[in-house]
């Protein structure tokens, strides 16, 4: 099963086992990872599951959809590698994925 590493704003790393087809957000919630709120439960409606994707994976993870990009355009502290983790589905080739959570989701 693909391993996903979550790094919080202070640099603390937490690595957990993901499941193919589940999202990076759901996996964080399942493992009680702080820094991902996901208020809307993954409906791409709230932008509280914002993460930065590690440079080695940005290409594999792919680009956000138009809807997600619009949500990101207006989120706080957005960078080039920002994604909403509810829109990233875990696949075998994302094994080792690292994402960093922003200081605050609001």
């Amino acid at each position, binding site marked *: 099963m693909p391993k996903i590493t979550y790094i919080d704003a202070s640099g603390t790393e937490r690595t957990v086992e993901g499941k193919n087809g589940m999202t990076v957000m759901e996996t964080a919630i399942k493992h009680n990872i702080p820094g991902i709120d996901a208020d809307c439960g993954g409906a791409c409606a709230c932008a509280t599951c914002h993460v930065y994707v590690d440079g080695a994976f940005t290409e594999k993870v792919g680009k956000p959809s138009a*809807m997600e990009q619009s949500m990101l355009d207006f989120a706080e502290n957005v960078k080039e590698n920002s994604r909403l983790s509810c829109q990233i589905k875990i696949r075998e080739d994302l094994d080792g994925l690292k994402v960093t959570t922003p200081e605050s989701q*609001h």
Partner: protein
Amino acid sequence: MAEAPKRVVIIGAGQAGGQAAYSLRLGGFAGAITIIGDEPQPPYQRPPLSKAYLKGELDAERLFLKPVEYYPEHGVELLTGVAATRIDLDAHTVELSSGAAVGWDRLVIATGSRPRRLSVEGADLGGILELRTLDDVDRLKAVAHPDARLVVVGAGYIGLEAAAVANQLGLKVTVLEAMPQVLSRVAGPEIGQFYNRVHRAAGVDIRTGARLAAFEGAGHVTGVRLDDGEVIPADLVLVGVGVLPNMELAAEAGLVCGNGIVVDGEMRTSQPDVYAIGDVAWRPLAHYGREGRLESVHNAIEGGKIVAASILGLPAPALDVPWFWSDQYDLKLQTAGLWTGADERILRGDPQSRSFAVFYLKEGRVIAVDAVNAAPEYLVGKKLVAAQATVAPGELADKSISMKDIGARALS
């Protein structure tokens, strides 16, 4: 300073009750937490029930707000399938349907709401369903075979979302709405007209101004009779005509109730060591200078956070503008603010393009926005609402000015 509370009991294992427990633990609460829920499942998300879950795209476990292991691992006692039957404010106990009683220093009432039932003839026939709980949806899914004739009573968000899914699953769907327009309680007429058109184009028979007289059938529903005598054949009926707050326990205990349990800005009821949150709470609406009851995820989560902060003696969290969303077909409606009381509505974009927004103004200030497939309008709109910003109506309607620029100007 008063002694720190040692035992918190939360009645209601929905999104608000769950959030109160999570936020208490996250905030460092070391005492005992008990959640009492009358449903068999741990706290779960309700919004997908009328959307992805009904459609069969998610299994139940993916709706759980926390995995089941969370509760024992974090010392949260989760009692499911048990109802609270009485609150004793003097003894500081809650009595349970199991016959047991639990004691508390702080009580959080998060009992939510229940679907309003119709009192017309035949309302207790088989095949007449409601949509509030996972079990409700499982019952609906079990009988929602393609080609079944479904009559949805009530064109609010629940009714229309379910109608959209049922239509996509191949059911023959009729929606009955007593008001002249769909969604008329929750959104402006532009939004109602738009969704009316979308559903009709998809093949849903929407009947507005339809007055229900009775459900027909012997044992199981076979049709819905309107007051003009017409009978619409039905294999299944889904009633979605709003909810009522589950405030009986609180009222019987002597807590002040109106249309919900009356609380202050800290979500405290008329008894200071008892809180109420979520759908059941009649709360101050920070951005609107009035009180009201909100039925939304935003309200559930915010209430849970406010209560946890209050119990822990921490500063109250920043209050968000009420927000909400609805998924129907390929359309995502996102709402910020409350439109009641608007004296002006500004349409931005062309509904025909399936991406547009309606801004609601009161005395020139933006009080709400409904955005359909229009995230910038929603997100900037939400900030405008929070700031109660004044924006020239012509500017809001002008698509050649970006929302970013509108926001930058209005919020600077």
